[in-house]
């Protein structure tokens, strides 16, 4: 009897026990990126549609928005490059991801128990990361052209024509990724949003959503969970 009670309570405790999912550096960087992207989104949408031009007024008016938009773009780029440096190993797409991708409909239907186990990040998160990563390259290249349009010779005007189209198209793709990211992490998956604030998830959360990673970290407890540094 006594042992039974003890083991039950210890199981509940263990489910609630926390694991470090994001280090302080990762969290701070995430929010630098998130806030700069939000600024870029608000000002970018103001330039995108006359019906959203009022958004520019919210952040100080059209000329101010036009002045700061490229600088915030540089901040976002820097944040993303740091993320790449820290996460590119974890973001590698492997066979487990391919298996998971096939079971994506189950994930969409919230039948997570049917999914093959995944590591620190699942295939969707990896797609999001690489989408934003390559997107930012194109946004940066086209953005520099739009930033200094006046310095471009008239004979190179085709570069301007390409830049307006690339910048808008890629921005739309990143907006799609951003919306899904915000929905999944802040609304859909309970426990995700908090982990990007305080850095912790429960063992049960890790077991449910990132089982391979759960075994990795509970197997070898480390302060920086899966950043395998030699």
């Amino acid at each position, binding site marked *: 009897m006594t042992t039974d009670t003890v*083991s039950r309570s*210890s*199981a*509940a405790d*263990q*489910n609630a026990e926390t694991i470090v999912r994001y280090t302080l550096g990762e969290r701070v960087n995430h929010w630098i990126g998130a806030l700069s992207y939000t600024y870029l989104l608000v000002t970018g949408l*103001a*330039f*995108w*549609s*006359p019906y959203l*031009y009022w958004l*520019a007024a919210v952040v100080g008016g*059209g*000329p101010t*928005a*036009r*002045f700061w938009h490229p600088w915030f773009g540089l901040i976002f780029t820097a944040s993303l490059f740091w993320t790449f440096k820290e996460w590119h190993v974890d973001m590698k797409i492997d066979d487990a991801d391919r298996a998971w991708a096939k079971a994506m409909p189950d994930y*969409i*239907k*919230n039948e*997570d*128990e049917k999914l093959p186990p995944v590591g620190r990040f699942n295939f969707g998160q990896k797609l999001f990361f690489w989408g934003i990563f390559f997107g930012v390259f194109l946004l940066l290249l086209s953005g520099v052209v*739009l930033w200094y*349009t*006046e310095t471009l010779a*008239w004979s190179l*005007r085709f570069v*301007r*024509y*390409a*830049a*307006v*189209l690339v910048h*808008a*198209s890629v921005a*739309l793709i990143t*907006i*799609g990724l951003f*919306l*899904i990211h915000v*929905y999944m992490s802040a*609304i*859909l*998956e*309970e*426990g995700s949003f908090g982990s990007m604030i305080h850095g912790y998830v*429960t*063992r*049960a*959360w890790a*077991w*449910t*959503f990132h089982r391979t990673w*759960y*075994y990795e970290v*509970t*197997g*070898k*407890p480390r302060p920086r969970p899966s950043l395998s540094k030699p």
Partner: protein
Amino acid sequence: MSQAATELIRISGHAGVVPGAGLNREFQVCKLVDTTTCIGCKACEVACLEWNGYTFTETTFDNTYQTMPETAWNYWNLIKFNEHERADGTMMLLMRKDQCMHCADPGCLAACPADGAIVQYANGIVDFQEANCIGCGYCMTGCPFNIPKFDPPSRKVFKCTLCNDRVSVGLEPACIKACPTGCLHFGTKSEMKELAETRAAQLREVSGFADAGVYDPPGVGGTHVIYVLHDAKNPELYGGLPKDPQIPWSVRLWKGPLKWLGNAAMVGGIVGMALHYMRFGPKKEEPIPPDALPQPDAVPKDDRHDDGRRL
């Protein structure tokens, strides 16, 4: 509209015609530049600077009569010179007054994102309202004539106003007033078109310029600055006047289909996610089955993974 309230069409007990009946006022203005009678004196450039309050800009020397390569934010009117060698070996000095063309379908206006930074008046004048300009430079991308120019210190874009401030009070543009040869004309669009066609016909029939014609490009809906050219088949000879100017297709795509596709995708995505949440609800963590739990009492802390991996 206000005109309709004062214009009479019928008068009771009135003998004869109604005074002013059938009067048709044309609002569309037009500047005609006859390149065949331009002597390149640059009086129009000076008049433009004087009227608009800019000082003369230092010139550059490139072994031709060209004083600077293109118009500038504070230099809206520039004669483009071209020493053109004709097929028979004779030389022609082609001179064209370059300035905003005041397109009926202005690419600058189509590309501009700032509310009220570019306006088009009923008389055809396309005018920049610098107070509303945000300095993004999209107008420079939309314009097929390389006209809007950016001023870095003020972060605003400027161009020829067709002397809107003069035209609106019944005066002709400053450049027209200064022209000593009469190669510049100003009037209604139909009058100028007629005058231009008459001159082009004269050039073809009398002066031996078989290809003389009028430049009023339909690709931008026609312009409110039109040219008479000796060789209308090769407008590029006249300081790079585009043969068939159009608003760039990428700008049209960006401001047209891409905008609606993007807006539909954004709204659709948000609605889709809301429906997804209502249908499938939140993802919640599941309790770990006991055999997948590390055994804290049985094993030292650092070796827990052995138990965990048994699953």
